[in-house]
């Protein structure tokens, strides 16, 4: 399964990180790829509750994503479904899991965003591949310096 994993060390206790992740006031301060403003942040902080976040990027485009909290276990663990409004990336629904572990320096945050299986099946049937190998090789060269290939 295709998934993205990020690990961050944060010099703050897990409860502070958990609140920053799940409260509208917290989300307004950090959500989005480039520091553009968050326009709407709504959360129902419980398992089965929903969230919705709309943000504007520095190029003026606006994007909105929403989903459901599948697991809500403060201050340790959060799992949620994720979908762009209007399915803008044609990606369907994906799944996010966040684990917060108390460490001496504060919190180790482990984040995983996973493409769901039916998405991958659908994508694998998409036609066209111009430039794909170029891109793969560029990416490979970029990664080679960093780690574990």
């Amino acid at each position: 399964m295709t998934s993205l994993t990020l690990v961050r060390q944060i010099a703050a206790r897990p409860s502070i990180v958990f609140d920053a992740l799940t409260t509208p006031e917290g989300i307004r301060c950090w959500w989005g790829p480039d520091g553009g403003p968050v326009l709407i942040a709504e959360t129902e902080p419980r398992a089965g509750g929903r969230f919705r976040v709309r943000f504007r990027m520095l190029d003026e485009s606006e994007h909105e994503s929403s989903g459901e909290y599948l697991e809500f276990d403060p201050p340790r663990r959060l799992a949620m479904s994720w979908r762009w409004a209007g399915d803008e990336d044609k990606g369907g629904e994906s799944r996010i899991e966040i684990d917060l572990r108390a460490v001496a320096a504060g919190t180790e945050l482990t984040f995983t965003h996973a493409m769901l299986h039916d998405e991958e099946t659908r994508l694998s049937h998409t036609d066209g591949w111009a430039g794909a190998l170029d891109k793969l090789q560029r990416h490979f060269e970029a990664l080679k310096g960093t780690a574990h290939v």
Partner: protein
Amino acid sequence: MVNYETSLDRTFAALTDPTRRAILVRLEREAAATVSELAQPFAIKLPAVMKHLDVLDEAGLISRSKAGRTVTVRLRPEPMREAMDWLQRYERFWSGSFDRLKALAEAQEKAAQAAEARKDGDE
């Protein structure tokens, strides 16, 4: 650090070998080739080339079809391209987000510690 897991690990592992990269580059140019055509430029034996093709096949980068005794090999990069696009998009999104999340949480931690120190001082 970013971990590209499972199928992408296989893809990148497949790409670490210069012979395999040369095979892919050639398949990109020629669309299809037989196994013996692919083996020709290399100073290695056919079974070794077959092993490289197995690795590329398992990584989903090529497909092989057999007609009689001839095996034809084709490039098959679609799943990887899509997976790569997906990963890059979300890596950008979440890396940027978590940089600011970290800054926010660390500022709040400092404020909380300062408040706790004041409270202890009052008691």
